[in-house]
């Protein structure tokens, strides 16, 4: 168990080293070593410390956040198709960000507004699903999906009535790309803290995954636990979306991939998701900026191109 986590950790470090070493400008290993020692030319320092390092950390943080949020949502909703965006969080964030852009705000306020939008979406879905009666996963899922469709309509409406000169900025935001990340720290810190917070709950999550009745019978207080997962997953997704826009696929595929290989034990799956999600996005982003350099690809293309065959292979093998 710990061995597989250790292995994933090594992979994560290797992927980061790979990301730092590779770019559209070639930096030799000797130069790389010089920069690590705090020397090296100004250009090499800029390339590595100001461009590659923050971007790599942002990619790792975002990927990790999305994968953990996806794993939590799948347990919460007991639905294998759940991903971090299924309840309309990215839609809320997008509406927040686009509103700030319409108002001509700077990037900092746009990020803040995106985060506020994501949190509003969370509260809205939770409040509506709570309603007058029961709070079942299927009710939560249905509410979320319909609210997400509502956000989608609002986004389309905003794009349709926005002055054309503001459109490109909005489209960049909607596409989602690590290169637009301003600072990696929120993603990295939230990821680290949330994994530490969630680990003590992992055993209860295992029980919950078998169904709420069984969990209640085994002495788990189901309602507060579900509530905690929901808030935490929302917070993770909101941070990820605020950092790099809505990057699809990672949150859906990474937890499933890990379950196929490691089994469905949340004590392993959650930290493994953080490591594997981060690794996948770091690798994908490195390829996105180097494959056809100087042309830059959107990272979502690469995550899907890497993830789809890997996932299908694992699924095929698993029977």
């Amino acid at each position, binding site marked *: 168990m710990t061995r597989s986590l250790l292995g994933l950790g090594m992979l994560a470090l290797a992927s980061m080293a790979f990301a730092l070493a590779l*770019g*559209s*400008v070639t930096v030799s290993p000797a130069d790389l070593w010089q920069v690590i020692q705090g020397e090296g030319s100004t*250009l090499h320092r*800029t*390339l590595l410390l*100001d*461009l*590659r390092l923050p971007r790599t950390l942002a990619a790792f943080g975002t990927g990790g956040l999305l994968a953990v949020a996806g794993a939590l949502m799948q347990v919460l909703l007991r639905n294998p198709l759940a991903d971090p965006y299924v309840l309309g969080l990215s839609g809320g964030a997008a509406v927040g960000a686009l509103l700030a852009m319409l108002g001509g705000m700077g*990037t900092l306020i746009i990020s803040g507004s995106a985060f506020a939008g994501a949190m509003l979406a969370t509260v809205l879905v939770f409040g509506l699903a709570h309603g007058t009666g029961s709070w079942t996963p299927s009710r939560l899922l249905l509410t979320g999906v319909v609210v997400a469709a509502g956000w989608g309509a609002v986004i389309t409406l905003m794009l*349709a*009535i926005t*002055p*054309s*000169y*503001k459109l*490109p*900025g909005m489209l*960049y935001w909607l596409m989602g*790309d690590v*290169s*637009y*990340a*301003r600072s990696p720290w929120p993603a990295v810190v939230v990821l680290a803290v949330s994994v530490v917070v969630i680990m003590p709950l992992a055993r209860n999550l295992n029980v919950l995954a078998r169904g709420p009745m069984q969990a209640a019978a085994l002495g788990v207080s189901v309602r507060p636990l579900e509530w905690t997962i929901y808030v935490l997953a929302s917070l993770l997704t909101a941070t990820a979306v605020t950092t790099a826009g809505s990057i699809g696929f990672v949150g859906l595929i990474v937890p499933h991939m890990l379950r196929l290989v490691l089994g469905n034990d949340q004590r392993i799956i959650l930290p493994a998701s953080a490591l594997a999600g981060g690794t996948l996005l770091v690798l994908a982003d490195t390829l996105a*900026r180097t494959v056809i*350099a*100087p*042309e*830059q*690809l*959107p990272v979502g293309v690469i995550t899907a191109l890497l993830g789809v065959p890997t996932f299908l292979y694992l699924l095929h093998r698993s029977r």
Partner: protein
Amino acid sequence: MVSRRLNSRLALGLLIATLAQLILAGEMQRCAVDDTRKELCLSAPAQRIITLSPGATELMFAAGAGDRVMAVVNYSDYPPAALELPLIGSHTRVDMEALMALGPDLVVTWVTGNPPAQVELLDELGVPTFAIEPRTFAGVSSVIERLAVLAGTEQEGFAEAERFRIGIASLTEQYLSVEPIPVFYQVWEKPLMTVNNEHLIGKVLKLCGGVNVFGDMQRLIPRISAEVVLQADPDAILTGSVDGVSDDQLDEWKKYAGLTAVEKNNLFFVPASPISRPTPRLLDAIQTVCEKLENARERL
């Protein structure tokens, strides 16, 4: 009247150029204000320039500093020399590493075309940036002059700006008294989009005596329905295409034989890149549009 005004402008231009020479002699800073009203001062003429839009590339060449442009983005296809320059990605996704590796001392950005986060990153890394996006004829000549100041090529740049000003003035005078005709300019076919009078294309139409049937609409590039085009019944329909060669973009209208523009065979194609980029090539675009509208008038 017009020529006297031009003379005074020329004199002013020369005065500025002379002042600029003095500035150079005193090794003082060269300063210019960009289209976001941010002032940029360089201690020496820019020698290593990177342009982040096809329009900026064209304007930099027009300013006489084409030989200082080290790298450009995709679709920088004019002048032909720009095609030889190395690429550093597209205007939506700039390869920041490649850009930094070239060590530019001036990066000309596009106000609404480049991702704001990437431009901010350049500012943080201490790369001098100058954001441009002319939206008027006067803005085109002004931006050429400002780029020339930054590059220290005032002589060529100011002359080119003046040539553009004179060109606009003489075309304006030439088409001042032509008969106004209602015109529809199709920016895009599906969805159907046009321009209002604030758009540079709208200004070109107006100069040529075309009355833009959607000129009063509020948005710069309004999305409209085919119905309102039929209702407006323009005398001519124009659209941009590669090199102005006829293609199928206007075929949809041929279904409506009752449209005056269709009946009189007034469906026209103009070269897309000169009319959609705010550069000196606008003069060619205006010439073409005005000639097409003249044809249209004859056929009415």
